[in-house]
């Protein structure tokens, strides 16, 4: 049967001294997918990537690429090309020589190399810049050269280590779409490392959020964003309200939980087993909430009365901080120009199906 996992890590651990940089990490990346390791600095995401590349040896565990165990394969034979944060272009070579370097190592013919280099430069939108020195290019162009240099060798897998983080915000975003489009055209497996949750969510088919050397949760961006398993995850991938709550009763996959002074019926996540009286957190994204006047009717939603403490105009939305029983909630209102801003006493309108439950951390 076809093994769909292109890259597989099984119980991989890497220690530096007494600290485990990567601690018993296992995951599978399907062939042809854009996979992202997301996490704060020091979470072990880059170490994991470097073990896949072969720059570090795992202390324990197996790394398999295309069904083959590659632990003992030297880095230069793995077919895992890498794109670096600082581009790592060879400063003494022209753009063409940089891109052609991997082909020269493969002892391709001169004519072959020239054609392939030109094609690849065209592919990444750098036609005509082959004779430049890397330091004559802008940051964005340098990163395209780095991507071209890695792609031209037709690697088994492409590894990208925060490739966009040295670029300014605008360029970062446009290159993001280019990378995604490139990956989809090639159908190649990309493993991407970043600390930027927007990047991770918008680029990836699959995201693994790492913290303190462990994978906290892995899955589709949608899953991670709306159904995080822990408070850390919920907070890390975007602004969120994490409201303490008590389970009133559980029946048939639905829990009745307290929301302020009222109750709401919420679907229980499959991996969570709840009993009546358990402490949970309600995880609600600010954009899932709406503000209503204090007198507005419930209209099938759960209404929580509160007071606007402060607000910030962010252009595409208005962000409110609303005090509810001594606790601040964040509520985002889209298209702020469409109505007068709210102030003073308000009601927060919650649709129960937008509430996700997280178990209260035991420790």
């Amino acid at each position, binding site marked *: 049967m076809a093994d769909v996992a292109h890259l597989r890590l099984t119980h991989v651990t890497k220690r530096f001294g007494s600290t485990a940089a990567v601690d018993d990490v296992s995951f599978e990346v399907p062939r042809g997918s854009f996979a992202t390791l997301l996490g704060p600095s020091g979470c072990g995401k880059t170490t994991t990537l470097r073990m896949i590349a072969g720059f570090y040896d795992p202390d324990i565990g197996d790394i398999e690429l295309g069904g083959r165990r590659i632990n003992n394969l030297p880095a230069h034979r793995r077919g895992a090309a890498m794109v670096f944060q600082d581009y790592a272009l*060879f400063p003494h070579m022209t753009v063409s020589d940089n891109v052609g370097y991997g082909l020269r190592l493969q002892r391709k013919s001169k004519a072959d190399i020239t054609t392939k280099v030109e094609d690849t430069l065209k592919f990444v939108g750098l036609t005509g810049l082959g004779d430049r020195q890397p330091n004559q290019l802008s940051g964005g162009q340098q990163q395209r050269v780095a991507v071209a240099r890695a792609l031209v*060798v037709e690697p088994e897998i492409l590894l990208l280590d925060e490739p966009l983080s040295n670029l300014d915000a605008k360029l970062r975003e446009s290159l993001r779409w280019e990378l995604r489009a490139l990956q989809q055209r090639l159908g190649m497996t990309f493993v991407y490392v970043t600390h930027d949750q927007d990047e991770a969510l918008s680029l990836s088919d699959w995201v693994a959020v790492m913290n303190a050397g462990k994978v906290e949760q892995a899955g589709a961006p949608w899953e991670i964003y709306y159904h995080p398993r822990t408070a850390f995850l919920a907070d890390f991938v975007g602004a969120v309200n994490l409201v303490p709550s008590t389970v009133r009763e559980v029946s048939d996959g639905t829990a009745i939980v307290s929301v302020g002074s009222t109750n709401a019926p919420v679907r229980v996540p499959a991996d969570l087993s709840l009993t009546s009286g358990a402490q949970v957190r309600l995880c609600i994204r600010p954009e899932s909430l709406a503000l209503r006047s204090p007198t507005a009717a419930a209209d099938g939603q759960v209404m929580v009365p509160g007071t606007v403490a402060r607000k910030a105009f962010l252009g595409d939305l208005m962000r409110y901080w609303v005090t509810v029983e001594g606790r601040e909630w964040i509520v985002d209102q889209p298209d702020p120009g469409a109505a007068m801003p709210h102030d003073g006493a308000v009601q927060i309108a919650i649709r129960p199906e937008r509430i996700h439950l997280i178990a209260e951390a035991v420790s």
Partner: protein
Amino acid sequence: MRREPVLLLALLAAIGLVAAFIVYPQIQVVLVPGPDGYVAFLSGGTWVKPLLNSLQVTVLSTTTAVVLGFVFAYAMVYTPIPWKPFFRIIGILPLLSPPFVVAAVYVLLFGPRGIISYGVFGLSPSVFGLLGIWGVQTIAFFPFAYQLIADVLSRSDPRLEQAARNLGAGPWSVFRSVTLPLSGPGLGAAILTTAIYVLEDFGNPALIGGGFNVLPTQAYTLIEGFGDFTGAAAVSTILLLLALSLYFAKTRLDRGRSFVTVGGKASSMPRPPVPPMLTRACFVACCALAGVILLVYGTLIVSALTLYFPTNMSFTLDHFEYLGAHATSLQNSFVYSMLAAIGCSAFALFAGFVVQRGSWPGRRIFDFLLIMPAAVPGIFFGIGYLTAFNQPWSDQLAELFGQRDLRAQLIVIALLFWNIPVAYQAIVVGLRQIDRSIDEAATSLGASSLRGFRDVLVPMLGGSVQVGFVTTFVRAVTTLSVVIFLFTPRSTTATITIFQLVNDFDWGGAAAFTVGDVGMAVIVLVIIGRLGGRLAVTGFRGG
């Protein structure tokens, strides 16, 4: 690395070379006398006088050389004196010539028939001994002190000094409260390095020491005069211990230096102005020192071009014709030094790579062994090679290759490994400035470590290679002490010839050879400098 057998083999070969040519000869010297030999030697007491002499002259000459070097460096770095390019060349010139040139000129000027002492004052003073050595070493080594101190001073951040001035401190106050505390460790290291140069100086005391023996000359006399290997080995072991302790004191200070170089390159901000009086005083001092250097080299050139300096001043090219007829030694110097510089650069590249980029057990020891020759006096190094390799088996080896002896090869190897520290450290510093992602990029594209090293790192290390190459070449053409025990008439070098000619009172010939030797160093330096686009002058040392 363990997955790359070629790299592993190359590393083992490098370790083998270091063991054979750095560790083995030195251990040989230390072990030659044996316990009984040391007891007999130490109780004999012949070493006490040279030891005291060495200490005395090192303290005296280092102090004066450092004071003069400091004045010169301060003037160059801090004051807006005119003629700086000229003074810079004056500061480099002595680094390109054998230090004992100063001693030779000193005799010509102030000796019993010296042009100044006899010619002007009609005196025939006895110039040999402590005072002579002191004076000569001061002049010979102040340019070294200048280079080291100027390097330290120029790293002191002008922004901090401007800030101090801005807060109301006067020039003297800034110097005392900001510059000196920041540069203190660096200056200390510069002083100790100068002291090592002076301690290890063989040529000057050998030429004008007279009965005043220091440790290096004592070792030489014991071997050449009495064939006393045991004694010479013991004396040079004492010398080695002194040099090593100075060296370790220096490395301790170097470690404390790191905070001076915060921010790496000095900013382009100008230094705060100094009082005009001070600038004028500095200018006068620099002119005086430049005058002395010019006097030395001027005398050299004049005596190379006159019949019998100073008694017969008629112009002649005889000495250069003599040089032309006996050019073997100059040619040898060039060939040996070139080969040593090439070999040294190549070896340093590889060694720097495996130490800086690798992670293997024993890496630290390997690193230490490569830096160690910097603390080993040339005379000790030479005796080491003599005791280790002047063996029956080396004659058999020579026969095998159809050679009369392997001395030429031995000299090249000795020069190569004696100069490894500068070349090696330059590579390590260079590699530190290249991010590892560059190597990893090559690896991830399919290059083995060695291939990536060759294709990517080596081309990027041009500047570092240049420093190592030039320094090795210059030190190799100017050293006397390393080769003095190794040469044979066929494999003699320019410095040996100069030394012999001076001892035979053939001043004209010696001067002509010195001009040839220095000229060779200058030409190579300029060519390499042109190739690489900049002059690399730090790290030179005579010996």
